[in-house]
């Protein structure tokens, strides 16, 4: 588990749109209202309601929810592209909401860069100048920023297309430009706002793998907004699942799938292939007698899917080994129980 200090620390964050929005979080009676009732009573819409979470250094933090759940508003609040109504946001311990314009600009220029659903590229500029745009804004001299931009153009696999215009690129290529633009400023955190939802499924998969690769190479902290559960499970170290502006569950993919907090989440994850998400750590039981010494060894983070393969091959149980010590075993019944969605019989020690 990631124990690094938080990059973003969000507490009791509210964003309410509408007239006299700031009274809503203050008044507990109003704050307790449902969306429809709130709208009727005050004409306001609460896009983000009382949200708190930490984003830890180096992790991929996914905010997931259906459209209208407030996730895009939430990510914009982090760098105050949308001004929050109340609550607090700290970045590396520094209060974001009390920053003055210059400090905030500094944050946006160097510490957090964003990738957008509709790319947000400048249509009148070539690929290379789009990638260099963030550096241009920082005041990096032309030659230097072009050189650095060229590096990132290569990194996202667009070499040879430096002088094309965005409209001459496919959607996937355009988003690579958007990604390169964000990477070029070397930010501490990358913010993704549904970056791949406008892309074709195949290209989307490529791009997701690109993100996984980049994260693997650089270990950069990422906040990733998506409405696609598969994408969330694939990329996220932790997932915050939002509904009507609230976080209904925050946890690892395994926790979300394995232990849905309520019916909404359960319904949401019902069709997820559980064996792909759940790990043997959840599925295992304490070893009995000889089981601790025989059978193939698996790491505790191996998926159930992997364990099934090992168990089928060996014909018996598999050991779960962590730091050279056997912490438990999984057998047919344990694994099938996970796949069938039955609650694990007992927690591992």
């Amino acid at each position, binding site marked *: 588990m990631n124990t690094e200090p938080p990059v973003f620390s969000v507490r009791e964050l509210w964003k309410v749109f509408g007239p006299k929005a700031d009274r809503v979080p203050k008044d507990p009676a109003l704050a307790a209202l449902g969306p429809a009732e709130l709208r009727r009573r005050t004409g306001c819409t609460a896009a983000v309601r009382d949200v708190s979470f930490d984003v830890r250094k180096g992790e991929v933090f996914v905010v997931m929810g259906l459209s209208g759940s407030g996730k895009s508003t939430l990510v914009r609040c982090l*760098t105050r*592209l949308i001004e929050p109504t109340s609550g607090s946001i700290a970045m590396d311990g520094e209060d974001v909401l009390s920053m003055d314009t210059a400090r*905030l*600009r*500094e*944050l*946006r*220029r*160097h510490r957090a*860069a*964003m990738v*957008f*659903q*509709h*790319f*947000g*590229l*400048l*249509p*009148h*500029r*070539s690929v290379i100048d789009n990638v260099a*745009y*963030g550096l*241009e*804004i*920082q005041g990096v001299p032309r030659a230097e920023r072009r050189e650095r931009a060229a590096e990132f153009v290569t990194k996202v696999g667009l070499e040879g297309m430096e*002088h*094309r*215009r965005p*409209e*001459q690129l496919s959607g996937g290529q355009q988003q690579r430009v*958007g990604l390169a*633009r964000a990477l070029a*400023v070397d930010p501490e955190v990358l*913010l993704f706002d549904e970056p791949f939802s406008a892309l074709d499924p195949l290209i989307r998969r490529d791009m997701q793998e690109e993100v996984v690769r980049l994260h693997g190479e650089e270990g950069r902290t990422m906040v990733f907004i998506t409405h696609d559960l598969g994408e969330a499970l694939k990329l996220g170290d932790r997932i915050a699942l939002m509904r009507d502006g609230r976080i209904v569950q925050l946890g690892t993919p395994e926790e979300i799938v394995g232990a849905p907090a309520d019916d909404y989440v359960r319904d949401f994850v019902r069709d997820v292939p559980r064996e792909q998400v759940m790990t043997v750590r959840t599925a295992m039981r304490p070893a009995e007698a000889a089981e601790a010494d025989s059978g193939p060894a698996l790491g505790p983070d191996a998926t159930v899917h992997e364990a099934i393969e090992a168990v089928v091959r060996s014909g018996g149980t598999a050991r779960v080994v962590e730091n050279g010590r056997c912490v438990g075993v999984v057998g047919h019944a344990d694994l099938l129980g996970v796949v069938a969605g039955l609650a694990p019989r007992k927690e591992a020690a």
Partner: protein
Amino acid sequence: MSISTATTGSGSTAGTEAGAPPLRTRPRDALARHRTALVAGAALLALLLGTLLLGGGTWPARLAVDLSGPLGHASDWIIDNRDSHPLFLYFFGHISNAVVLSVRAVYLVLLAAGWAGVTTAAGLVAWRVAGIRPALTAVAAFAVCGLLGMWVPTMQTLALMAVAVTASVLLGALLGLAAGLSDRVHRALRPVLDTMQVLPAFAYLLPVVLVFGIGVPAAVLATVVYAAPPMARLTALGLRGADAGVMEAAASLGATGRQRLLTARLPLARKELLLGVNQSIMMALSMAVIASVIGAGGLGDRVYQALASVDVGAALAAGVPVVLLAVVLDRVTAAAGERIGAGPSRRTGRGWAVAAAGTVAVAVVGRYTGRLSWPDAWTVDIAASVNRVVDWMTAHLYSGVPVVGGTADWAARFTTWILDPVRDGLQWLPWWTVLLLVAVLAQLIGTWRTALTAVLAMAAIGVLGKWEPALDTLSQVLAAVAVTLLAGVATGVAAARSPRLERLLRPVLDVFQTMPQFVYLIPVVALFGVGRAPAVAAAVVYALPAVVRITTQGMRAVDPVVMESSRSLGATGWQQLRQVQLPLARPALLLAVNQGVVLVLAVVIIGGLVGGGALGYDVVFGLAQGDLATGLVAGAAIVCLGLMLDRVTQPAGKETRDA
């Protein structure tokens, strides 16, 4: 396409609007029916009350204000203080000087480059920004200007245009910038721009002349005031329409407000900006001729002087260069607009260097071979042959044509059977019923707000004491609009169904749209005699092209899927036209009506020059006699009439003028 938008700046909506016909839902339909009933009820009630309380007759004198006193005083004050008051010495005087100096500078440069240099420069610039075809057109156009013996006047007009267009574009861009960035400025500026859009060019002349006197400064300033609004409007539109996603991306990268404006918002609006430049140029060019009345000189002056000696041929020889300049400038700026962002970004410095070097080389060669001014031997005199053709035409068409009768007979019948009854009818109506009529019409077509504006505008005419002549003018406008729409929509539908006809029509429409109206005044009088009929004819000639264009575009833009499905159901061509195309092109047709009205009104003052009388004559009179009171009041009445007609014909929920 942009020529069609030259005079009003809203023609460009035609395509897009027609492309998205409003899909009315059932509840709105019900609402609309409900509203019609409501309006009818209110109108009936008002009719009843009016009859009981107000009685009949024309606008009551006690509700009118006589402005001739104060306006006369203002005029006297300006004349008395023009050479002494600091406002004139330190403000207007400097403006005037700056204008004279810059026009002179440009003019001298043009003359120094010589005809070969200017023609080469035009060709090369057109080639760089627009491609090879516009370049050839440009070269040919300048050559024709020389051939017609109009080189020097063309250069004079070009110099004036260059200064006026630069000033309009700068001024317009600044205003547009303010309106594009600030909602408050936008709200304040929009009604002003809307109003200026319906102002006939002539109406600008009088106040400007009063302050600056006759001459180039007044002409340039009138042109700037006339040509800046479309630039302002389009700049604001472009800035406001900037892709929100791109703007957000710029903000997310920490761009300052200035950076966002310069690197994102402005470049994103570049198409609108170029369209604005295009419109400004077209408006300035049409004004350049009208401004000859106040001493603009150049081509306009040649047209105007030819008009004085009743020489159609000479007027045409000076009018053709105006048309050519318009066509070239339009094509080049339009092509430049389309080229923007298309094709890979490439280094263009070398091309420009070649162009510049070529121009300089040609200019220097021209200079040392002593061929700066267009050789006299190379001119063609078209005046005599044109006059013969016109004489023949008017002699044979004027009267005594078997069966159909001559044009003079048509004019007489048109006057007696259409213009007279409409005018007399309008003037017979009790004044308040006219207001009521306006309110009901505006309400049915537009919204409560447009109805209110329309009624206020109409009432203002009464207050100005111009009720009777305004109704006379209105009758002419209505007749002209009716003829324009009948002919224009029929032609437009035909052109939409036959691409060949459209291709044939295009140059004709271009010519009629850009030809200075002074050129065809004499033939119009020779055909229709003096009076209101020729005024209507001149208006129809002027307004027809835009109506044809908008109709064609609207019909073309009808969703091909719908057309295909109706064809698949076995609809005949006529059924298709009637049941599918015309209903779906409704927004475009409404726009055509609106444009027709605005354009016809723009020619009302010109109509005053051929016997149209009424408000148009009053403005001409005011200009000719330096009579501010008469001219300004009549001009204001025309503006009110324009506002009223514009609002009455402006469809609800459609920002027809805001594109």
